[in-house]
Structure formats: C-alpha cells, structure tokens
C-alpha cells in the first residue's frame, strides 16, 4: 500500500535519513517518536507537502514521489486539527469537495453522510471557535474522510484532547481501520501504539530504529531508547557469565540475576518490565529463580495504580494495582522482597 524507499530529507540542522517503511493495505501503522524526531516531517513528505531530497514514495504501486498533493489520494489530519476558523463545520467538510468541483447537490449529500457517520450532524451549521477538542477532532476527520482517501495520515491525533475523549476517538479510528482504511498515525505516546497499532515503527533523530508488531517492539526493544518508550524503567548494566551451566548476569554493584537462554554477550544492558516483578513483605517461602531483599524507598501513584521503588543495591521499579498495594501493607523504609522469573530479563541488542 505505502512504501517508502530510502527517503532522505534535510531540514535545517535536522535530517530524515534512509527511511524505509512498508505498510500493507488495511494496516494500522503507528510511528512512535519524541518531539523533533522527524515524524511530522515524514507525514508531510507522504502527503506531498514537501519533497524528499532523495528516495521514493510509492502508494498502491504508483511512484508518487513527484506527484502533486491531490494526486496522491491521502488525507492528513493535523495535530491541532487546522480547522478553518472562517467557515462553518459544513464549510470545512465541503472544502475538499469544492476543490474537486463537485456539484452543490452532491456536496450536500456527502457532507451529511460523513457528518452522520462521525456524529457531528448537530454541528454542521456552527462556526468552529467554540467546539471542544473532541468535536474539532471529528470535524477534522470528517473533512479528511469525505474524499475517501486510500491512506489516512494522523499527526498526534490525541495530543490536544481530554483523556475522557480519547477512548471515543480510539474507537472511531479502530472502526475506520476495520473497514479497510490504511492508517499511519504518529504519536509520542506508546500507549496509543499498544492500543491501536497492528505495526509499530520507532523513529529517533530522523532514523527508524525499530519496527514490528507492538508485541515484538515492546517485549524486545532493541535499545534503551525504545525500552524507555515502552515504559520500562528497570535497566541494569551487567556482565554475563555461566555458572553450573547456567547463564547469570552480574550488576556493577555485585547483585547477580539468574537468566534463561544462552549465548549472551560479555556485557550489556539488561531490562526488566515493572509488571514482571513481584513484591513481598516477608521472605517468600517458595523457590524463585530470582529473589532479592531490599528496602522500599518510594511509593508513588501511577497510571497503573501504584509504583514502588525498592533499593536492593540496584533500584527496582514495581507496578502494583491499588488493591494489591493495600493487601501488601508496606510503607516507605520497610523491608521488602522482590522476585522475578529468569525469563523476565531481556538483554538489549547493541547495548
């Protein structure tokens, strides 16, 4: 559906370098990256607002690199929606149809149809100044979808709306994708990727540094940057060695972990997902592959419930639900035990 071949583009001191992406028809591709990583510039290249310095853009087996914007059949929804303030909602939606010189009667039919689909019929005659973020988002989607683009490009579509409205927009986007619309969605929020993407690409400093399904990317991040993006906070610089035919990892501070698997490098960066670690108030009776004693240093609320930081020579961050935290009955400065399976340790490539 969309193929980017070795795209290079210099923009001042920043450059998109050798970008190669393959997106199949009907896929929901989330491009994940921090502000300034080049994701918006990449979307603008795909939409045709800019031309790459080198490389090719193919849409539906057609090389569109030099084609004009309206010949690409893509729709771009901007981060802050870019709704025209000098027009009503209906005027905004009809704008692209006027550009295509459609008959007035057909325009009215199309505008009403898309407005019904996106539940904004009641807004059609209103100007846009007093609309909420969620309403503006729907108007922007309607304005883009009314021309039935083959490819929908979304630039941080949830950055400017309340948390309560995000689920609504996510549902709408999922429905559009289920109907067969190919979507490229750029965001800095990995949770959007987890909940929406069928494929994820991580962009950093103008390079795609990892691509795959959300499971692949978030369970096997290629480096610390991607791991941090996946919400992982437990990083350990370790040396790997074998003892009694078993691989182990030794931290700088003498703490040693048991690992599963083999052929580890001499040394590297090991990560542990917070949700793979269990915490106990007293020494666990049952055998665990990794069992470490520490002191609870911090207890903070988090989006998952509670986040507990345990110092055991190395710092461990553990996520707990509020109920589990209440049942555990621990407080700061109290002793605690953490356990995790050997397979929970992930070694980052190229670290």
């Amino acid at each position, binding site marked *: 559906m969309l193929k980017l071949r070795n795209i290079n583009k210099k923009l001042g001191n920043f450059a998109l370098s050798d970008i190669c992406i393959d997106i199949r028809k009907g896929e929901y591709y989330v491009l994940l990256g921090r502000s300034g990583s080049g994701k918006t510039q990449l979307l*603008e290249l795909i939409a045709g607002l800019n031309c790459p310095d080198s490389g090719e853009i193919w849409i539906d087996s057609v090389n569109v690199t030099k084609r004009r914007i309206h010949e690409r059949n893509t729709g771009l929804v901007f981060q802050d929606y*870019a709704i025209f303030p000098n027009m009503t909602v209906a*005027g905004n939606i009809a704008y692209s149809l006027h*550009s295509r010189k459609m008959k007035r009667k057909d325009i009215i039919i199309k505008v009403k149809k898309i407005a019904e689909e996106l539940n904004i019929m009641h807004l059609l005659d209103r100007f846009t100044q007093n609309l909420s973020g969620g309403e503006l988002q729907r108007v922007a989607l309607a304005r883009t979808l009314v021309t039935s683009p083959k490819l929908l490009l979304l630039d941080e579509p949830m950055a400017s709306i309340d948390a309560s409205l995000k689920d609504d927009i996510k549902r709408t986007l999922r429905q559009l994708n289920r109907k067969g619309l190919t979507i490229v969605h750029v965001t800095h929020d990995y949770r959007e990727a987890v909940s929406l993407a069928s494929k994820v690409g991580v962009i950093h400093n103008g390079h795609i540094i990892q691509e795959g399904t959300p499971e692949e990317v978030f369970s096997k991040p290629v480096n610390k940057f991607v791991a941090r993006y996946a919400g992982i906070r437990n990083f350990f610089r370790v040396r790997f060695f074998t003892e009694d035919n078993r691989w182990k990892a030794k931290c700088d501070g003498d703490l040693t972990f048991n690992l599963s698997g083999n052929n580890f490098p001499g040394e590297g960066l090991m990560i542990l997902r917070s949700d793979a670690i269990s915490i106990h108030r007293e020494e666990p009776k049952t055998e665990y592959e990794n069992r470490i004693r520490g002191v609870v240093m911090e207890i903070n609320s988090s989006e998952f419930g509670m986040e507990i930081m345990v110092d055991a020579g190395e710092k461990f961050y553990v996520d707990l639900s509020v109920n589990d935290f209440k049942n555990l009955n621990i407080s700061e400065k109290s002793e605690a035990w953490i356990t995790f399976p050997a397979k929970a340790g992930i070694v980052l490539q190229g670290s």
Partner: protein
Amino acid sequence: MLKNNPFNLVLLLLSSLVLLFILAPLAGMFINTGGSELLETVNDREVRASIWLTLWVSFAATFFCAIGAIPLAWLLARKKFPLKNVVQGVIDLPVVLPHTAAGIAILGFISRDGMLGKAADAVGLTLINNPAGIALAMAFVSLPFLINSARDGFAAVPERLEKAALTLGAGRSRVFLTISLPLAWRSIITGFIMMFARGMSEFGAVVIVAYHPMIAPVLIYERFSSFGLKYARPASVVFIIVALAVFIILRLFSIRKKEVYISQDAET
C-alpha cells in the same frame, strides 16, 4: 479601572499630556472657526472640488496599489528569498524620506524625460499636474502602510491552515483566496485605510508633482500663504470633518464586509 497609586497617577498625567497635545490644536481650530465661515467654505466650489479630488485620487491610488501590494505582502510573510531584508528596507524607505525629496524623485520619474513620463507621453498622457501624477505621489509615500499591515496579517495566519487546505486538494490560488486572504482581511483593511488616510493627507510630495489641480492640503496651504490663517482655517476644518467621516464609514464598512464574507465562504 486604574488604582489610585502614585505610579498610576504619573501614567495618567503623562497620557493626558500626550492626548492634550493632539487634541488642543484641533479643538482650538474648531473653536476659532465661526459657523458662517464654515457654511461659506462648504459652499465654496473650489474647496468642494479639492476635497473630492483628494478623496477619489487617494482611494484610487490605494485600490490599484493593493492589487500588487497584497500578493507582495503574502510573499514577505511566507517565503524566504535572497535579499528579503533588503526588499523590506526598500518598502520602508518612503516612510523615512523627506516628502519633498520623495516628490522630487517622483517628478523625475514621471516628467517627460523620466521612464514613466515617456511611456505616458507616448499615449498622450501628461502625468505632471494630473490626478494620475497626484495618485503616484500619494501612493509612493503611503504604500508601506498597506504592505506592512497586510504582511503582519498574513504572518498571523497559521501556516498549517494553508497546508491543510493544500492537502484537501485546493490549488495555491484557491488557498490564497479562501484561507490566507479572509483570515488576514482585518489587517489588510486596516492597512488599506491607513494608506488611504496617509495619501489623503500628503502635501510635500504632491505639491511638487501637481500644484494644480489642487488637492485639499495644497488648497489649504495656498489659502494660508495667500490670505493668512483666518482663510485657511475653515477649509482645514471642513477637510478634517470630511476625512474623519470617510475614515469612520470605511471602518464600519470593513467590519460589516468581513462578516458577510465569512458567511458566504462558509456555505456548502
């Protein structure tokens, strides 16, 4: 409401002095002009003709210059090009030039030996002592007001709105006419009115290019130098009243015009 503290009192005093400086001479002129003198001046055909000439020539100069000045303002607001700062400096040049010097420059340009003068002469038109020459002199000194105001208006239109329109299949000209222009409209109208008003009040450049036919500022000067203050004052008062009325009408019209434009554009 300003609170009654020493700082605010100083502010109030200084602001009042500035306002008084502007209003006192005008008020003095109005007070010292009798009703009968005013009526006589209003009925003076020469005065009426000069005011009418001033209004329509300044309006025509502004209108025709706007056709080129508005696209130039958009270019300055949106595009990067070599020597852009030099271009901007050139545009501001008429503001800092002595207006008599501007008049001399224009005269050189439109006289029979000048480039434009020769071209006009070829079609049987003499620009000196002609409303067309007056319009050129007015435009020369007042054009920066329109260009700068329109440029600021275009610069304030978020570029992403223009990009969004492009992605919705609009051509560059449609984006300009339906997005950039309507959203910068208020600044353009402000610039238009400022250029019109500045052109209307121009004396120095116009008097060198065309003493006749007389625009109002030249007529006022002529009455002052020939007959004295008493005869110049009523003509000044009449001109100020007319200019003020036109200024207010244009302002009101521009606000109404903007609303109408939006509602038409918004139709499906």
